[in-house]
């Protein structure tokens, strides 16, 4: 990835640090927690992504077949990445991840399973991930999003992301976080 990525001057945060629990707009009790590294949670995420509607894929992820979902999850659930999961009981309803890009910044992605969309989970999930990242000393986060994905762009703007690149198929957006590590 390019080293000359631009980040906003304004600093966002502090954000809530997981665990976070709340009742969503459909009266479901949702708990957001960091991924615990267990096989059970890994499998719950595989199940979530296997149920994912292809229309909600973004730039090729999540992959379509279970074997490829597993390979993809193995890379982003590795120890150098930060992951939070939104739980409805034992069901993974959403997942958000920070993947280091080789410099000091991280790429972010967020996925919410279709029956759990438009219930306020995405906002909590992304804020929890940013708080979790900031508590690990991560201050620079970027993402790319397809420009027609207005719901996602609105969410990213709401939490403080600014558009930093618009010359490609996708928009690039970035955020600068207040360091929340002790």
């Amino acid at each position, binding site marked *: 990835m390019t080293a000359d990525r631009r980040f906003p001057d304004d600093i966002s945060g502090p954000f809530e640090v997981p665990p976070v629990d709340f009742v969503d707009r459909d009266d479901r009790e949702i708990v957001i927690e960091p991924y615990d590294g267990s096989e059970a949670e890994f499998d719950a995420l595989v199940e979530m992504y296997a149920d994912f509607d292809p229309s909600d894929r973004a730039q090729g*992820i999540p992959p379509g077949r279970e074997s490829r979902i597993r390979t993809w999850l193995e890379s982003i659930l590795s120890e150098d990445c930060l992951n939070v999961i939104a739980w409805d009981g034992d069901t993974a309803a959403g997942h958000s991840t920070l993947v*280091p890009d080789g410099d000091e910044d991280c790429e972010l992605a967020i996925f919410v399973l279709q029956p759990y969309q438009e219930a306020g989970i995405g906002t909590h999930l992304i804020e929890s991930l940013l708080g979790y990242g900031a508590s690990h000393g991560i201050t620079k986060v970027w993402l790319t999003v397809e420009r027609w994905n207005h719901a996602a762009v609105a969410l990213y703007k709401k939490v403080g992301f600014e558009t930093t690149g618009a010359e490609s198929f*996708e928009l690039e957006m970035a955020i600068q976080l207040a360091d929340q590590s002790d």
Partner: protein
Amino acid sequence: MKVLLGIGGTDGSFGALERTVDRAVVAGDDLTIAIVDSEGTDADRDELEGRVESAVSDTELSVDIRHVEGEPGSKLVDIAESEGFDEIVLGGSTTSPMGKIKINQTAEFVLLNSHVTVTLVR
């Protein structure tokens, strides 16, 4: 089929090379490989040519290998249209650390502007 493969030195273009050569062997394609300038890599052209030669050396194919200078997208479109190619093949995408696919500017230009069929190898 008369096929023009553009390769620049990204990982994606090596995947495209392998796939296109394999297909040409089976389908009997008339294959031309254009080595172009690539964004974001400083791949050495001689080294690229070596990779191309070794990819085709085990086959019976007679492949036209060319060096194309200048803006890769417009050059590939120009060659394909002026020389009667049926298809342009590109490995024009990279993946982000997250695994998101990003289509590079050469591929974007070719997809939008080519009058011949384009295959993007992922």
